[in-house]
Every structure is written in structure tokens, then in C-alpha cells.
């Protein structure tokens, strides 16, 4: 057991997989010599050498295209897209290429690759460097989508992603890089498609992802302490594959559903989850499922405004309380 930052967990996770399998290679902008702009990949170049850890030009399409070409011919690349907002400049590879090639070729082509990317707000970087874009990927058939909230999950889910035979988009939250958590020694491998109940409760189910998990947890504690409302908090962790069983089971016992989404509202992952629950657990619901999201706006840069835009502990508490007491 050791305490590790989320940032260091990234490097450890990559190193764990690169040590295990010589087919795992890593590429991205400023990732090698500089150790990444978030310093999340420090030491990998030194450990694995310049043939396996490669700096690229500012060419996101070339990065993902190269990752795909390498993956379909035998390697297991990890590609970094520095900020998840930049997925927009190479979206074709996620939307049309490595997501569809297995299906289109009747199973001939395999693309075991991982795209790691810095996601989310809270760093006052403004509208083009702060987005939560898990839904950009969730909506594409053929992709798997993961977003860890703890250092341990970073390692475990990254290992699962690298070992997975399908393309996995791995969202690291920029505002979590500095956070710490206990991590066991030795190899850690988790499973994709498994949500985690991080707080048991009986009055309502709160679904959250990444940075929203600690906020949902804090809100749950506050709701308990101040209002006697006992929430179950689920860290969804993996949007595709999606652990609907854990979620449906929880709703069947709490009878209420809330989602806490960092993305702007429309077509967020929470919409999909609400539609699943509303369809399949309709008669278990005692009241409307409610989504707590960033409003449907671009993120502002100024600290005060950004803080008010993203779901806060207070907003979660207020929404849950008002909704349950309605």
C-alpha cells in the first residue's frame, strides 16, 4: 500500500502494462522527453526508450491514425490526446475509423488501442480546454469509454483498457491529477463495465463520474448529516460497457435517481441512463429522475464563473433535497 497521486498513477499504470507486454507503445505530443504537459507520463521515456515512447508533431489525426494502423497490425498503442477538447480535431478516427472497422470488415480488423486524454473543468482554462466530452465517445458504437475517479482506478482501469481487444477511450480528469489515494502494491487490473457503489444508501441513487464522484459523496454526507437523507452513490466508472445491473438494482431499492454530470446538459451520459432506468425500472421509481448537470453553455474561464457553472456540492444537495421533499 502506498499513497499515490492520480497523476502518478497514470505513469504507473502505463509502466505496468509496458513492462508486461512489449507490444504496448505510447505516443503523443510532448509525452516523452517532457513527460506530458500534466506531468502524468514522467519517466516513461527513460524506462522504455524512444522507440516505444514517442513524441509527435501537433497532428492529432496522425496520432490516432498511427495508433489505429499500429493496432490493426499487431501493436497495442496508447495514444495521448492532450486535452479531450482536441478530440474534435481527430474525431473521424473515433467516430468513423477504429470504432467501425471491426464491424465493417466482418470481424477481420481488430483495433486494440487506448486513447488517453485530459478531460474536464475546474482549471480555469476556458471553453476550449475544459470540456467533459465522455458523451462524444459514448454515442459511437464500437468504442468503449472509461473515466476513473481515483488513483487506484486509474491503474486498474488503464490496465483493463490496454488489455481489452477493443478501442477504449480513457478520460483522465485534469482536476483530479493532484488528488491522492491509497494504492496497493503489485499489479492492479480491474474490469471494464463495472460500476462501484461508493456509498450505500436507501433514499436515493446518485450516479456520478470522475470529478463528480467526490462531489456526490460529499453531498451525500451533507444530506445525511443535515437532512437525514441517505443516498447511495455509484461511481459509474465505465460508460461502455455499462453496468446497468448495478444501477438498476440500486434504483430498485432506493426508488429515486439522480445523475451528476459535468457535461453540458443535452445528450449527456445521464440522459441515456435516465432513459434506461425510466424504461426498465419505471415501476420502481417513486418520483422523477433528475439530472444535475453543467448548464447547456460553454465553460467560462474566470474562476468564480467556472465554479458556478459546474455542479457543486451545494447544488447537488439542494436538488436532491428539494426533489425528495417535493
Amino acid at each position, binding site marked *: 500500500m502506498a499513497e499515490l497521486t492520480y497523476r502518478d498513477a497514470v505513469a504507473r499504470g502505463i509502466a505496468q502494462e509496458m513492462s508486461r507486454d512489449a507490444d504496448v507503445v505510447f505516443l503523443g505530443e510532448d509525452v516523452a522527453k517532457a513527460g506530458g504537459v500534466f506531468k502524468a507520463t514522467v519517466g516513461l521515456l527513460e524506462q522504455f526508450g524512444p522507440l516505444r515512447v514517442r513524441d509527435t508533431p501537433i497532428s492529432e489525426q496522425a496520432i490516432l491514425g498511427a495508433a489505429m494502423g499500429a493496432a490493426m497490425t499487431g*501493436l497495442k498503442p496508447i495514444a495521448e490526446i492532450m486535452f479531450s477538447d482536441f478530440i474534435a480535431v481527430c474525431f473521424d478516427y473515433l467516430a468513423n475509423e477504429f470504432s467501425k*472497422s471491426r464491424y465493417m470488415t*466482418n470481424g477481420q480488423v481488430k483495433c486494440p488501442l487506448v486513447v488517453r486524454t485530459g478531460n474536464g473543468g475546474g482549471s480555469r482554462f476556458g471553453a476550449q480546454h475544459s470540456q467533459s466530452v465522455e458523451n462524444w465517445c459514448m454515442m459511437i458504437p464500437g468504442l468503449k469509454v472509461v473515466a476513473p475517479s481515483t488513483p487506484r482506478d486509474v491503474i486498474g482501469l488503464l490496465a483493463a483498457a490496454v488489455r481489452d481487444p477493443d478501442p477504449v477511450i480513457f478520460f483522465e480528469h485534469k482536476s483530479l491529477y493532484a488528488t491522492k489515494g491509497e494504492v496497493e502494491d503489485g499489479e492492479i487490473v480491474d474490469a471494464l463495465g463495472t460500476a462501484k457503489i461508493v456509498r450505500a444508501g436507501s433514499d436515493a441513487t446518485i450516479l456520478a463520474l470522475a470529478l463528480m464522484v467526490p462531489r456526490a459523496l460529499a453531498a451525500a454526507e451533507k444530506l445525511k448529516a443535515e437532512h437525514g437523507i441517505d443516498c447511495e452513490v455509484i461511481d459509474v466508472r465505465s460508460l461502455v460497457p455499462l453496468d446497468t445491473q448495478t444501477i438498476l438494482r440500486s434504483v430498485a431499492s432506493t426508488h429515486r435517481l439522480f445523475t451528476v454530470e459535468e457535461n453540458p446538459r443535452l445528450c449527456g451520459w445521464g440522459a441515456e441512463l435516465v432513459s434506461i432506468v425510466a424504461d426498465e425500472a419505471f415501476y420502481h421509481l417513486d418520483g422523477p429522475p433528475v439530472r444535475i448537470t453543467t448548464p447547456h453553455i460553454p465553460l467560462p474561464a474566470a474562476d468564480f464563473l467556472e465554479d458556478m457553472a459546474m455542479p457543486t456540492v451545494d447544488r447537488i444537495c439542494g436538488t436532491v433535497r428539494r426533489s425528495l421533499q417535493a
Partner: protein
Amino acid sequence: MRFGPCPRRQPCYNSAGQAYFMAKTLTQTAVSLRATPDDVDVQLRLKLYRMLVEIREAEQRAYDLFLQNLVKGTSHLSLGQEAVAAGYGAAMEPGDLSFCTYRGHAHTLARGVPIEKVLGELMGRDIGLLRGKGGSMHLTSVEHGVMGSYAIIGAHLPIACGSAWRAQYKGAKDVSVCFFGDGTTNIGAFHEALNLAVVWKLPVVFVCENNLYMEYTPIGEVTSVEHPAADRASAYGLESIVVDGQDADAVYRSAKEALDKARAGGGPSLVEYMTYRYSGHSRADPAKYRPAGELDDWRENRDAIKIYRQRMLDNGIAETQIAEIEQDARRKVDEATEKCKASPAPPLEILCTDVYADGGWAWRN
């Protein structure tokens, strides 16, 4: 002529090879090529000719089949452009990898994929290469080294880089060959791929088939240089190469050169082939945008099969042997057509297979 001499272009061959560079005009080249001393051996020549006519026959059949409404959706033929696919098909080693476009029937056939697999896919039958799941624009046969046909312009150039990177990393000796059109040189992915390939010195050959049109628009109207690929080679520190794409020998020799260079660790090449498509851009296109006489001129004076047939005769190959190859090709295409017609539609069970590696499509538990 739409394309004249380019002062910046330097031939990269000195003596023997020079014949297959574009001279001032295509007509001159074509003439000069017929007079070129022969350095291609007979077996190779027969093989190249067989490929040319098989591709021509198969593409013509595809055209006939969609006139009969047996090919659904769209379809992009290489009628007229066969020599590029054939030249590379002959020059590539087993294990070398092809990355094609939606206009990829020819390149797929040239790697040895059975005709019925290709036609069957166009017809949406179970016999098809992809059992109908991909369609004409996505022909792929990993066992033949055809690593896919890509329908988003430019997307496969970076992908070919990745394949070449794998070869470089693993110390494998295969070369990745990426085919694309003149219009493709104007999209961003082209630029990113070329730069990366050179910086990483990857074993990849970028093959630009300049058929003078980007869909319906003459390439010169939307391109800042005369030779969309060759005039940009220097932007990546590469040599500028233009080759007569109607001469299968010229294609073969230039392909060999580029492949050898890549295999020897010399890095990427970008080669531009001047060619022409006889059919419309796709099945929907009657190609009315062509200047009068242009198509006829190419068909008459620059047809890859005519040129090659004459060269064979000039080099003493018997008319009977040539005719036999031609009959063979027609027979193969006929047989393939029958197989396809007899094949059923793909079964409903495969609708949701192979989305993920477990064989299924389950995005949830």
C-alpha cells in the same frame, strides 16, 4: 494539356528508369514508352497483363451488374486506372500491406482476392468479402494484405503510417502502401501523414492516382499547384516524382523502387501517377463535366491495356497467348458472377455481430 512540365521536379532515376517519368505531355510519354527497351521479364509481363484484364473485366462486370440493379448502393470503378493497381500488385511482396480507398476494387483484386468475393460484396450477398457488412467502399482482406478500404477522404494515410510504424518497431520487413486520389491531397490528414512519415522515416509508400478529377471538379480548379502530390513532396523533404500511370511497366518499376527504398530503411516515398477514369466518379455520375473528346483521347491513345497489349506484341509474345489471358479473365468473371447471383443475402444473425471483440454488440450487462 492540363498538366505541363514542372520546373521544380527532379527525376530520381538517371538512365534506365527515366523512360517512365512524365515527359512534357502524356502523349509524348506514351509514345516514348512504346519505344523503350524492354527490361521486364516475360513471366512478369504476362502476370501484369493478366491483372490488367482481370481488373478491367471485373470492373466492367460491376458496371453491368449495377445497370441490372444487382449492385446496390454506390460503387466507384477504376476503369482506365488499372495499371496503377496492377503495377503495385505485381511489385508488392506477400506480407506487404495495402490501404485503399472506396475506389479500391482494383487494388483489392490486384492482391489476389477472389473476384466473387469482391463482386459479392458489391451485391450485398453472403458470399461477399465482408458478408455485406462493409459494402463496396470498405473492401478488406487481411489474409491478402488488404488492410482496408477507407471512404473518408485522407483517413487512411495516417493509418498506413501506423502500420509502417509497427513494421519499423518490430523490425519486420513489410512495407505499407497507401493509395489515394489527387483530390485527397487537399485534406488535412494528407499533410499530417506525410510529415509524420518523414519525421519517423517510416516504410510507407504514398501512391497518388491523379485522374484529373476530384469527383466532378477538375483538380486544377481547387488545387494551388499543378501536380497535387509531386509539387508538395518538397514540403516534406521528399523527392518530386510523376509517373505515367497508364504504363504498367512504368508503374511496376517506380513501385519497386519505392518499395525497395522503404524496405531498406530509406523511409517514405510519395509518387504521383497520371491516369484517367473512364466511368463516372461513382455509379450516380454520368460525368458530363468532361471536356469533349477528353475521354475518347484517353481511351484511344492512353489506354493501359492497349499500350500493354501492343508492348507484348512488340516484344514477341504471341497473339494467341494474349488472347488466352483475355478469355481466361472473362471466364473467371463469368464464373464469379454466377457464384454471386447464387449466393443469398447475408443472414439476419450477423446484423449485430462483431461490433466488439467478443463477437457481439453488448454495450451493457
